[in-house]
């Protein structure tokens, strides 16, 4: 009985775990069909990421942008807006930061100052990206989802424009920017891997977002606006300000993410397509039910899956995209509020019957 009670208490967690397991089963079936040597592919997918130190740190590295974008999405969703600008804001601020880092910032500048400045620039660019759709929404009630998806395409093109015409290095054969100044880069913290100091910035961002949403008045106003805008309005909260603030912060988190990613991981800016981190961020935010403190955990899970899929993609005959199916199945199940609801009902009845009996 105590077990049933505990199960009921942590039912949300149980649901997520079940969804992940079902998704996992799905992925294994997909692998089984497509691979000539399925056992090897499955083993590579599941255990591959932990087989070497480098691969393990690859997971942590991939976690960093995902943490930022999912935090951004948590902010957007906690105010109840499906502002998907996180995707475009991440990329565009990366482009702007790379442009500044490769042209304006000279190698002689002090090593701590320039990354800090550049991250601030990234945050501002991201905030700007977040505010534009927010303003269109509050002023004219334009559909945020469609507007931000369109803006994402525009920002992706704008980033390519910046790359091609402002900072292209014509001495290399591929489409890449000039080299980013050494002084601007985030340092590697573990020798032999490309783990960089961005992981600390991500950690601070998680703490800050958690603190803002749960412990500040403004954060409470944001949450209240998200859960019941009319009520928030009647108790005297400036809902317009709350909406704009939350979306600006969400955008700036994405912007910081883009800056950190570029300064930590790349020598040159190379992105020509949408990165997809924003949409993965949305999925993570849904999975953690908009609780920022849990994003690193789920970001780790998603990064692990992606790295596993990448290894499968490079070492065996399987394309990496099957992992998208995996991720979307998890989200479909978790987003379905009635998924496993009958079990929950039965558990609740069982527990309350037992309590009534004494």
């Amino acid at each position, binding site marked *: 009985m105590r077990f049933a009670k505990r199960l009921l208490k942590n039912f949300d967690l149980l649901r997520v775990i079940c969804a992940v397991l079902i998704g996992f089963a799905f992925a294994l079936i997909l692998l089984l069909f497509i691979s000539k040597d399925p056992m090897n592919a499955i083993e590579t997918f599941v255990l591959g990421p932990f087989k070497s130190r480098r691969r393990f740190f690859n997971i942590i590295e991939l976690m960093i942008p995902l943490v930022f974008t999912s935090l951004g999405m948590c902010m957007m969703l906690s105010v109840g807006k499906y502002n998907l600008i996180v995707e475009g804001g991440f990329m565009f601020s990366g482009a702007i930061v790379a442009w500044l880092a490769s042209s304006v910032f000279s190698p002689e500048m002090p090593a701590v100052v320039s990354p800090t400045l550049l991250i601030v620039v990234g945050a501002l660019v991201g905030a700007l990206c977040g505010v534009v759709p927010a303003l269109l929404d509050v002023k004219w009630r334009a*559909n945020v989802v469609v507007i931000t*998806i369109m*803006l994402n395409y*525009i920002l992706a*093109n704008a980033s390519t424009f910046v790359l091609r015409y402002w900072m292209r290095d014509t001495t290399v054969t591929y489409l890449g920017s000039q080299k980013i100044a050494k002084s601007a880069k985030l340092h590697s913290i573990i020798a032999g891997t490309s783990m960089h100091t961005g992981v600390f910035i991500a950690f601070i961002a998680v703490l800050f977002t958690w603190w803002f949403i749960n412990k500040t008045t403004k954060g409470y106003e944001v949450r209240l606006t998200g859960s019941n805008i009319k009520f928030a309005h009647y108790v005297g909260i400036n809902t317009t300000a709350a909406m704009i603030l939350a979306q600006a912060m969400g955008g700036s988190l994405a912007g910081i993410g883009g800056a950190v990613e570029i300064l930590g991981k790349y020598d040159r800016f190379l992105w020509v397509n949408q990165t997809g981190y924003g949409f993965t961020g949305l999925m993570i935010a849904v999975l953690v039910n908009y609780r920022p403190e849990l994003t690193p955990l789920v970001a780790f899970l998603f990064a692990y899956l992606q790295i596993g899929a990448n290894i499968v993609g490079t070492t065996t005959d399987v394309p990496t995209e099957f992992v998208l199916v995996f991720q979307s199945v998890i989200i*479909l199940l978790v987003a379905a*509020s009635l998924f496993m609801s009958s079990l929950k009902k039965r558990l609740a009845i069982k527990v309350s019957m037992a309590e009534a009996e004494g």
Partner: protein
Amino acid sequence: MFEQFFSQDYMVAFLNSIIRMSTPLIFCAIGALIADHAGTMNMALEGIMLSASFAAVYFSALTSSMWGGIIGALFGGCIISSLLAYFHLFKKSDLIITGIALNTFASGGTSYLLFLTTGEKTTSRLLRSLQAPQVNIPYIQDIPILGEVLSGHNVLTYSSFICIIIVYVLIFKSRFGLRVRAVGHNPNAANSIGLNVRKIKFRALLISGAFASLGGAFMSMGYLSYFARDMIAGRGYIGLAAATLASGKPFGTLLAALGFGTANAFSITLATMNLNADLVAMLPYAATILGLVLISARKLAIEKGKTKLVNKIMEEKKL
């Protein structure tokens, strides 16, 4: 640079490409329109079109017939739209999140199936699939310029225009349409007079998916002759925007879709003229945003005007 643009051949080719580029948008916007009337929002249109365009190629190669491809496309699209309807209506999940998840699902799923069936990772050029035929309209094709613009399009292009009429009849002149609109307008009232709200919404979403699937079929059987990864490239969302822009009117939807098709064709034409490709590629999306903002601003102004009028009348009555 621009003299070339105004030459007759160029104009004809340009107008011709407007019609071609608009076709998938029209189909998709019809889909969005039906979902809109049923009080839902079909966010999965992108995924529906993508899976339909893959299924079109696959089934047309399998059955080596065009109809096999079309039916396959309807089947492929309906899988996604019925998943959306099932999760939204029976599992109470959020439409937007489910829609985006399904788009990801379709993107990953089609890449997976592409590899499974052809062993290729980017395109399906190896599959011997058929194209939907081009149609020359008698009499019209003989008119000098008009004929070149209007005739010789894909059969699916003409169907898209016919579909607008079909949808108009379906929504505004049929019993089913009345029920769909009732459910969309006020589900509780519809329920109270004995309509099965869930069933009607489910059907509306399926039909919405079916129309979008035809757009997907056009992408791989008319616009291109093969399937390429993520070939829809945002057209699903643009179609959604077109329907939002027209606020539920079929012929307005047609106009909006043609408008976005024009922006699309324009960007391709400009790109060939040594203009900046990246800036020009933004054009259709920027046009969509502008259109959406204008239309919602107008709606808001009308709403405000109404409230003002009501307040005024109330005051006068008090006096």
